[in-house]
């Protein structure tokens, strides 16, 4: 199914938490809009993300069996929100869906998707250490790539590089 057909199906199923569709648009010089290229995303409320994923997985006509990717993005130091980005794939119907959830930068928290897709477990661990996002109910919330005592969240735009680590100067 194409993106629009998937969104229509989700709306018909009354999937929880749909906010809007974030689709590419051409540039508009009169309104000084640079436009947006790339692929469409469906914007979801972060609190409802887990219930939404369950609908995506269990519906016969959507059948998103695989959670391909779950990550976050910090769009800029001045922006008030972090983005959670999810990529789903249906093997049976050969279609994809990209989701986006906006979270406040102050204390970003959302429920863990591990109960729906086990694949989310390591992606969420990476998100936690890199962006400081808290996934409530995560079974194993340890650092995965960084050392356990690392200070700060390196992929946040306001991250300050350390000057020393365990007595070794990094400058």
């Amino acid at each position: 199914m194409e993106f629009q057909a998937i969104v229509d199906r989700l709306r018909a199923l009354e999937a929880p938490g749909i906010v809007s569709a974030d689709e590419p648009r051409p540039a508009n010089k009169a309104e000084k809009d640079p436009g947006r290229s790339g692929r469409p995303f469906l914007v979801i409320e972060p609190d409802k993300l887990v219930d939404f994923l369950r609908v995506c997985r269990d519906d016969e006509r959507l059948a998103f069996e695989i959670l391909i990717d779950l990550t976050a993005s910090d769009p800029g130091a001045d922006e008030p929100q972090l983005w959670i980005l999810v990529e789903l794939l249906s093997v049976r119907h050969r279609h994809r869906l990209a989701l986006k959830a906006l979270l406040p930068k102050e204390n970003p928290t959302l429920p863990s998707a591990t109960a729906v897709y086990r694949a989310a477990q390591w992606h969420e661990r990476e998100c936690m250490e890199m962006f400081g996002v808290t996934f409530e109910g995560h079974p194993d919330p340890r650092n995965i790539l960084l050392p356990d005592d690392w200070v700060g969240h390196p992929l946040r735009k306001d991250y300050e590089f350390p000057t020393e680590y365990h007595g070794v100067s990094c400058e």
Partner: protein
Amino acid sequence: MTDVQQHTPSIHLSGEEPRVLPNGEREFFFDVSTSDLEVNMGPQHPATHGVMRVLLRTDGELVTGAQPHLGYLHRCAEKIGENVEWLQYLPYTDRYDYLAAMNNNLGYSLAVESLMPDLEIPRRATLLRTICAELNRIASHLIAYGTYGLDIGAFTPFFYAFREREWIQALFEKICGARLTYSFIRIGGVFNDAPPGWLKEVAAFCDVFEEKWREYYDLLVTNHIFVMRTKDIGVISAEMAYDFGLTGPMLRGSGVDFDLRRDLPYMAYKEIWDAGAFRIPVGRGAQGTLGDCWDRFDVRVQEMMESIKIIRYCLEVIEEGEVIGDVPKVIKVPAGESYVGIENPRGELGHYVHSDGGKVAVRCRVRAPSFVNLAVLEDLMPGTLLADSVAIIGSTDIVVGETDR
């Protein structure tokens, strides 16, 4: 007979009282305690294929738990991606899956190109990309073939695999000057045209490899000892593969017929598939349970042959022409965001790229197949024998440069 049995030393759990034999002596007694033992496999262990540590919890010969510890090779690829220009990041992509650098270049280039709707990729560039990506897939699977044999204890196939891989590397050296980290596939096309006679050399390689492949198949894949070591262990069902988000040969080994090259085609793969040039090998449970280590291995080895067929098709239809589109020296990517996944030798390599219209990415996320495929170990290992753990880790075919990025 009964006497013999009574005098046979038997293993007792500690705390159990030894029996008194009919002659009045106490039974010969091995006090074997089987408390839990934690064994560190790695970080420097040949079977982990890089710097990775698996913390195994064992009860005697039985593995009761496994916990992979990563991060030893973390080189901050995603952070670098936010700090260097679009084209400058390309050499870093070589370094996550260093056994399939062409495919990494391709994944990143396609992701960036998806944000540039005006950019046209010349047909010769697309076909050269396909040839290089498939050659690299063969080279990568040859390593998987050789090192898996090595893990199991078969030394010979490793040398044969490296001999053919050497040939592929020599071909790459001729086209781009590098043997491991190519940076050949660029945003907009490829770096330069193939030197004269290069395509003929690729055709010659295909001829020889097709012949050798059958020997390799018989040497290891259907070898009785190898089959006994790899069948019925590390079984991943299709549901489990879905749940853990496995892709590539790990998914197909479980009997799921899915390949991005056919099902969500990119570049010229739709045309190649429609021409009937290749098929998708899928695990069938031919030697044991469906989704065991043998099935995954068999899928990889068969894929090499399919890649040869794809290359042959490309060699047939390739024509003279431009090899790179109209790309400036300093690339400015239009504002936008996109996720693009391609079929790497190890599964789906995805790039999420986000541009604000400038020279540098806002976010450059890498969805690495090895990272995701490795997570299944935590569930796969409990209940297996310690001796099989190496076979199971080997069958996931990870590259640690990619898990840690």
